[in-house]
């Protein structure tokens, strides 16, 4: 209990309470995350269960009874007769899941390799940075296709739909880690010649302790900038991959897949199929970005 009171009085919390942008963004993210967690309770339909779908319900307008079945959909229905509201809730689940895990994967991989490359130097650095070059060379689309191809060959059919998500995480994460590694290495190169690092070295600190305790906190600022954008970017990268036909399966759509499907109806008047998923994605990505913005400024001791 004391800890909570302490936290409430901390600088960070004070800063938070006094930043309307942070409060609003946090509230939005909080609501969206809650919606995602309780999707099975909130959603009127389970859009991932095909036997409950009725194709005839397709293209129902929001809040208007379907001509044939009389069913009413809050945000309308899509081309397969799925409730758009439900698909958004379930789709956001997949999007968030993919985004968070992909960035975490990229960040851990990138920071580790970047620190090692920058601090250790020599052949280790050469090898890591050249691997990064190779990685950068491949457009993430192609990396995704490669991983998809291999997975399709290896994984039994029944598990493929679940695997598609992990494949996306791997593919997007692999596309992002280089950014972290390059920036961390660049900053490490600068930091490691600073006096405090040399001092730590002189008093006999072990290399990995120096890297984690001393250098890491000082390179976190650019990392946070990238991580912030990366989370939103990862969610969007998934959408882009689905535009090119290698994203989440249409029977278990993510927000990105929903937008890809919806953009086909932009000119035809079924605006709700595109608008609602796009707005949700926009809200999600925007508030994550704003929250990240604030967090960066608040956490940065040099800015206080």
């Amino acid at each position, binding site marked *: 209990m004391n800890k909570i009171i302490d936290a409430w009085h901390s600088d960070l919390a004070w800063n938070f309470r006094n930043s309307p942008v942070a409060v609003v963004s946090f509230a939005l993210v909080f609501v969206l995350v809650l919606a995602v967690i309780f999707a099975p309770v909130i959603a009127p339909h389970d859009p991932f*269960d*095909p*036997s409950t*779908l*009725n*194709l*005839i319900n*397709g*293209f129902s307008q929001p809040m208007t009874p379907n001509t044939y079945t009389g069913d009413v959909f809050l945000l309308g229905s899509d*081309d*397969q*007769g799925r409730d758009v509201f439900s698909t958004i809730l379930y789709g956001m689940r997949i999007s968030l899941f993919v985004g968070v895990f992909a960035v975490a994967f990229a960040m851990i991989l990138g920071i580790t390799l970047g620190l090692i490359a920058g601090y250790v130097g020599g052949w280790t650095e050469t090898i890591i940075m050249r691997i990064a070059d190779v990685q950068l060379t491949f457009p993430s689309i192609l990396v995704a296709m490669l991983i998809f191809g291999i997975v*399709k060959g290896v994984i039994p*059919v*029944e598990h*493929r*739909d679940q695997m598609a998500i992990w494949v996306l995480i791997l593919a997007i994460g692999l596309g992002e880690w280089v950014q972290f590694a390059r920036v961390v290495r660049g900053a490490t190169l600068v930091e490691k010649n600073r006096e405090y690092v040399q001092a730590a070295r002189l008093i006999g600190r072990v290399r990995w302790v120096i890297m984690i305790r001393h250098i890491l906190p000082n390179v976190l600022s650019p990392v946070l900038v990238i991580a912030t954008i990366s989370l939103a970017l990862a969610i969007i990268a998934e959408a882009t991959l689905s535009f090119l*036909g290698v994203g989440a*399966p*249409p*029977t278990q759509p993510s927000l990105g897949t929903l937008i890809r499907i919806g*953009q*086909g*109806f*932009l*000119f*035809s*008047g*079924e605006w709700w199929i595109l608008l609602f998923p796009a707005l949700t994605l926009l809200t999600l990505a925007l508030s994550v970005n704003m929250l990240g913005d604030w967090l960066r400024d608040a956490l940065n001791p040099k800015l206080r």
Partner: protein
Amino acid sequence: MKFKETLLATAILFSAGASVSAETLKWARAGDGLTLDPHAQNEGPTITLQRQIMEPLVARDMRGVLVPALATEWDPSDKDPNVWVFKLRQGVKFHDGADFDSEDVVFSLKRAMSDESNYREVLASVVDVRAPDKFTVEIITDGPNPIMPNNLTNMLIMDKDWATANDAIKVQDYEGGQSTYAAKNANGTGAYKLISREPDVKTVMERFDGYWGVEQFPMEVSRLEYIPIQNAATRIAALLSGEVDFIQDVPVQDIDRVVDADGLDVRRTSQNRVIFLGMNQGDTDLKNDNVDGKNPFADVRVRRAMNMSINRLAIQEVVMRGQSEPAGIILPPFVHGWVPELDVVQDPDIETAKALMAEAGYADGFSIKLDCPNDRYINDEAICQAMVGMLAQIGIKVNLDSKPKAQHFPLINNLESDFYMLGWGVPTYDSEYAFNFLVHSKGEAYGSWNNTRYSNPEIDAEIESLASEIRLDVRDASIRKIWDQVQEDVLYLPIHHQVLNWGMKSGVDTIVDPEDSPKIKYFSFK
């Protein structure tokens, strides 16, 4: 070089007088023609583009009717049933001014029969082509071939001397490491001559005033620009904003928008293409299901139950927005052998279907992977998605695996798929073509697209007899017998016949070609 100069000269000459009746048609579709070499690629958009510039002996008009092109008459020889005699049109000029005669036909057909040609299979029954005189050509087949002229509508004729001069005697050779001149240049007898070509960007053609049919066809388009635009939304935007005059593939959901727009129209017709699902019914066990030791598709009751569970009208109404014709048979309606009673569409009957499933021992259903292309047929992926829902109602859990066509087709042709979507057109307008590829047991010469593992020796023999049966009534009876068997065995699950939608400025006047292959010389302006 000389050819280029001539082209340039005529281009200048033409543009000088063009202001009189200059009507440019900007024509966009999803894909570009792959090459201008007439025998290198047997592919729809490629032949459609080439057809404006080059001509076959026998052509189809915009209604699909066989009409004379470079040949004026054709008949089986009186003396030998294995020979077809073609009388050639006289006074025809190539775009570079050379005269057309039988030498060019013999050269072109032999080129089309060569190893590198994509049309080798279509001409497989041809033994020799010879020219008794300057305007007669004889085609000798290995047996009587009653539908020979139908096989020639895609065999475009090149100028022998031009090909020789430009080192294009051989069909495009990938191994050689060099570009064939004929891949990017063309010299035909067609109504339009090539002005410039940038692959995937733009191909410009101009009316050929020396065309033999200048009096017979409207030929009101004086300049033709062919522009591939891949992304559907961009393509429709280009039509709506007036940047192009004519697009060939209007997405079904955008039809109303185009119809409502001022000065734009959509015209439609049934396409020569039927969409259906194939099932592996021959193997003793399936790789892609969850049933061990047996093959649920091998039981005709399961196939019937699946057929009954498909709500074709709902697919037509919702997925296709009315732009399809629900099908009961895997044969397009205008093809010889099609009869209405074969193409009856059943209403879905879930109860009976469930009973059939139970009878077959699958009361609890099973799971199976459905392989589906996502860039080949109109709304292919959405149709497959709808199938997932419909088959779920009789307990079949479908794992949908949709992918680009470059991955889809190898999968089904390497017999790695047990349940797949396929679309089929019949360019010869005769059932035999469909049987050869889709019904006959898979083997060297036949059944190359029959990936159902269905094999019925009696039917195979019946199919093989069609090629040389010249008594038409006997042949028709065989065709009917084969179709009845196919229907009885539920060899495939037909879904629908595709409908073509062409979007164009209201001023453009044309009917829609069932093969989706516009022949611009028939176009006129209102």
